[in-house]
């Protein structure tokens, strides 16, 4: 069983989703939840069977798909992807749990299950084409979720979402094929296996730079980085709650995960070269979207822009190119997934009751819905990175990592996070404090049973990992050290070697080249 657990994780939701067509539509919610629960337990089983002392790839599965072209079915996890997979299965389960009454619920649940397959697939694929396959395929269910259950401008939003990401990833695909071809010229054999690619060094810095850019376009659109972020507010604005939860929690992480899995180890010199430009873009992204968030009147847009803003911190941490920064950014991916997912669910809760997302319509909700206001408050604190919440750990480490690179830039980014606190608190104040001005709000019911069941686990995770992040941070740190060491060894120029530290240098003394 454990030998093929990754294949199980990938294909179980798909098979279950197809079988779901037979299930009666009144029972489909229970069915979807059972499937998501089994998937969640399977991913937890993966965690417990994961060898923490080992920093490399585990649970490897390999089979040839197109042998002449070097395309393989190649799966594996390391400390970096392990927790993102668990976060994916966890958030899918929670999102299904919190799903409110929807028309055509059966189609929606089946679509979410198919989407879960593609998301898990992206994080376990170690063959570039397989990665690309899941990456592209994930667009289709999301397109359907936004387009079929979205708001009034849903068609525009869904097609913008699809075309934007599709275009970016096609350019990435050309980059992938180019690398496979470089491998071919070296060895006489095409290969898209990431492990094979890691054995190559891209001595031609020009080539390395342009390949980095090709991947960057694909990933940056997905993250989405400024100025490619314009599709996201539309997608969030129009998507139904479950769509926003999964989009913010998991789909955006594909981009940042792609940086860690592909860009950094393959192109260390180009990463060093682009470090400052990307940091500048990230800081602009943090500050600009924070300001835009402040100006929003729609509470969902506030959450959406704040989510983009925090993605900026993740990218900043990743491109610190040291252990603290990258570990922090991976941890922040997890916390961002949980927190922004939770915030979108909370927005969905109030939208179900009031059918509006305008903050001016709310006010004084704290007295009417105390449990709701409390959970919202906790998530808000986690989002702005209050110490002892999950948000603090990742943000602190990311900034710490970048502080080693450039103190002024980090100060800018840190300031932006404070601005973030202002807009989030001001939004919270507008919606929750003060007297109840709108009579429609006077008799809103507080969280019901399923909503509590969906949200309380999130609060627990936020508190647990905020206080004691070590069980998660440990394995991440372990794999990231190996990654940074690999980048250091793989870098061509002295400048890059100087900037990228060698955390395992003591262990591998003498092997440095």
């Amino acid at each position: 069983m454990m030998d093929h657990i990754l294949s199980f994780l990938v294909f179980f939701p798909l098979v279950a989703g197809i079988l779901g067509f037979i299930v009666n539509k009144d029972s489909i919610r229970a069915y979807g939840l059972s499937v998501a629960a089994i998937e969640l337990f399977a991913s937890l089983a993966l965690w417990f069977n994961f060898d923490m002392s080992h920093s490399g790839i585990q649970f490897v599965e390999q089979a040839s798909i197109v042998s002449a072209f070097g395309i393989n079915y190649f799966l594996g996890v390391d400390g970096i992807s392990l927790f993102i997979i668990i976060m994916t299965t966890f958030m899918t389960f929670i999102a299904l749990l919190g799903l409110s009454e929807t028309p055509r619920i059966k189609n929606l649940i089946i679509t979410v299950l198919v989407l879960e397959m593609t998301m898990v697939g992206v994080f376990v694929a170690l063959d570039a084409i397989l990665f690309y396959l899941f990456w592209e395929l994930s667009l289709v269910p999301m397109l359907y979720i936004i387009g079929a259950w979205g708001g009034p401008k849903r068609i525009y939003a869904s097609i913008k979402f699809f075309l934007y990401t599709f275009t970016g990833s096609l350019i990435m695909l050309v980059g992938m094929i180019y690398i496979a071809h470089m491998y071919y010229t070296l060895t006489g054999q095409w290969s898209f296996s990431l492990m094979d690619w890691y054995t190559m060094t891209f001595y031609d810095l020009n080539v390395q730079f342009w390949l980095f850019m090709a991947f960057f376009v694909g990933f940056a659109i997905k993250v989405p980085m400024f100025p490619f972020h314009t599709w996201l507010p539309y997608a969030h604005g129009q998507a139904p709650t479950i769509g926003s939860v999964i989009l913010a929690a998991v789909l955006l992480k594909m981009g940042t995960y792609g940086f860690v899995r592909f860009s950094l180890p393959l192109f260390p010199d180009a990463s060093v070269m682009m470090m400052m430009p990307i940091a500048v873009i990230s800081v602009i992204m943090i500050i600009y979207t924070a300001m835009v968030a402040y100006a929003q009147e729609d509470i969902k847009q506030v959450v959406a822009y704040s989510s983009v803003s925090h993605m900026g911190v993740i990218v900043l941490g990743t491109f610190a190119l040291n252990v603290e920064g990258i570990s922090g950014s991976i941890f922040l991916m997890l916390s961002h997934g949980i927190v922004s997912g939770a915030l979108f669910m909370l927005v969905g809760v109030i939208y179900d009751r009031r059918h509006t997302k305008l903050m001016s319509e709310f006010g004084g909700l704290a007295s009417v819905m105390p449990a709701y206001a409390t959970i919202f408050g906790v998530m808000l604190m986690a989002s702005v990175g209050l110490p002892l919440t999950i948000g603090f750990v990742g943000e602190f480490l990311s900034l710490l990592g970048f502080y080693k690179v450039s103190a002024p830039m980090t100060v800018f980014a840190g300031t932006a996070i404070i601005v973030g606190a202002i807009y989030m608190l001001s939004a919270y104040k507008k919606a929750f404090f003060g007297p109840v001005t709108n009579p429609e709000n006077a008799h809103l019911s507080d969280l019901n049973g399923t909503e509590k069941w969906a949200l309380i686990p999130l609060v627990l995770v936020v508190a647990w990992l905020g206080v004691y992040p070590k069980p998660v941070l440990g394995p991440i740190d372990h794999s990231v050290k190996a990654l940074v060491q690999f980048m250091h060894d793989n870098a061509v120029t002295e400048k890059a070697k100087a900037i990228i530290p060698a955390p395992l240098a003591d262990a591998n003394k003498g092997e440095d080249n």
Partner: protein
Amino acid sequence: MNASTQTLLSTLLEPLSSVSFASLNMGTLTPMLIVIAGALGILAIDLIKANMDKTLYVMISILVLVIDFIAVMGMSDVISVMGAQRGFFDVMLIDGLAILSQLIIIVASMLFIPLALTGKRFHEFAYPEFFALFLFMIAGFQFMVATDNLILIFVGLETSSLALYTMIAMHNRKKSFEAAIKYFTMGALAAGFYAFGAMVLYAVSGSVELAVIGEKISQAGVENIYMYLLVASAFMLGAFGLKLSLVPFHTWTPDVYEGSSAALAGYMSIVPKIAGFVVAMRLFELLTQSGVIWLDYVLFTVVVVTLTAANIWALVQTDVKRMLAYSSISHAGFVMAAIYLGTTQANSALFLYWILFIFTNLGAFTMLWVSRQKKVAETSEDHPFSKFSGMIKTTPIAAVSMAIFMLSLAGVPPFALFWGKIYMIGSAIQANELALALIMAINSAIAAYYYLKLILYMFFKEPVNDGSVYMINSSTSLKSIIGFALFMTIIAIMYVDPVLQFVTDAVQASGY
């Protein structure tokens, strides 16, 4: 090869009685003869007893094609042992390319002919001549690909084209006549171009065999006869541009597709083109390899323009069939890149792409075919996008199938065409044509928009009818064809590897 010309000349001069039967190597001709015999058989049946049902003729055609398939496979075994075969006074040439393309032609024909078994009656299928013409046409295509003799190519080309014009005209729509006439006029122009090109090549080399022509060109030195070669390649490019609907020779395509039945339009988007590609491959790669560098530039331009312009025209179409017509022009441009690149990998990619394209396009056009109404009062178009509004709510399975065909055409993995696309882009990169690879990728993104447009209509808009119109023309056979196409589109990941192996072996063995 020189010796073979001499034997050819000597055999032509000798009295026929002195030609031994064995030297004709009739095995090379058998597949075509089987199809022709089948066609004559159909006519004979009609002569003996008229008014038989179309199911009889469809099944006879399929059986004939099965025998044809077996015969080609038999030849394939022969050439895998003994190398490329020549026959019938050396005009026939059976190499890997010929085998491969004949197999594609036969399989595609077997898949398309059951589309005659519609739920509604269409009068063209009541005529046995339709099926006889169909088989004659296949024989024509088989001749085209199984020779390197310019005259036999011409004969094959014209046989198949004339049959096809008639079949288009037999559809009972006013637009069908228009389409047939348009196709005929353009076809006549192409034939003229072809004859001129062939004439010039004959003038410089004194031969109509491509192998000999290549030899003579290198003997004479390209620079001495450069002008002639220029003229010849220009005419040939015009001829194949018209046949393969490359921009700017594509103008007939959307009108002809619109006027033909969807079944025939789908067929035209696949089979005549693969025959054309094989001949273009034989001819253009000969010319570019003999040093007609000009042709390289022109081919590059044609590829890029066909790919891009057709995509942009497809964006603004309001009729699904016309959209698919432009899309198939764009796909033709995409694989035409293989002929520009000329590497073994690129040529293999062409065949792989086209095999995968068969299943997807078969599915897409059959979906249009089953929704073909008798009369459309309010609109002049048969399949406007708006007709498919809200299809998911009335006929979900049909909508999902159509969506998967569209996603495959757009190149979304893991559906069929994605594998063809990456292999083609890979071969462009391998040939150091990075710019071309990027243009291909960006065009795929543009194309995604119009395929997506149909999906948007089907999934996100409100239904405009009760859904009966989508399957109005369906029958069990048609549904099975759609199911088969869908199956092959989805499980492409399973069979890409063996197909690619087979294709690469065949292409490599023929020296392309």
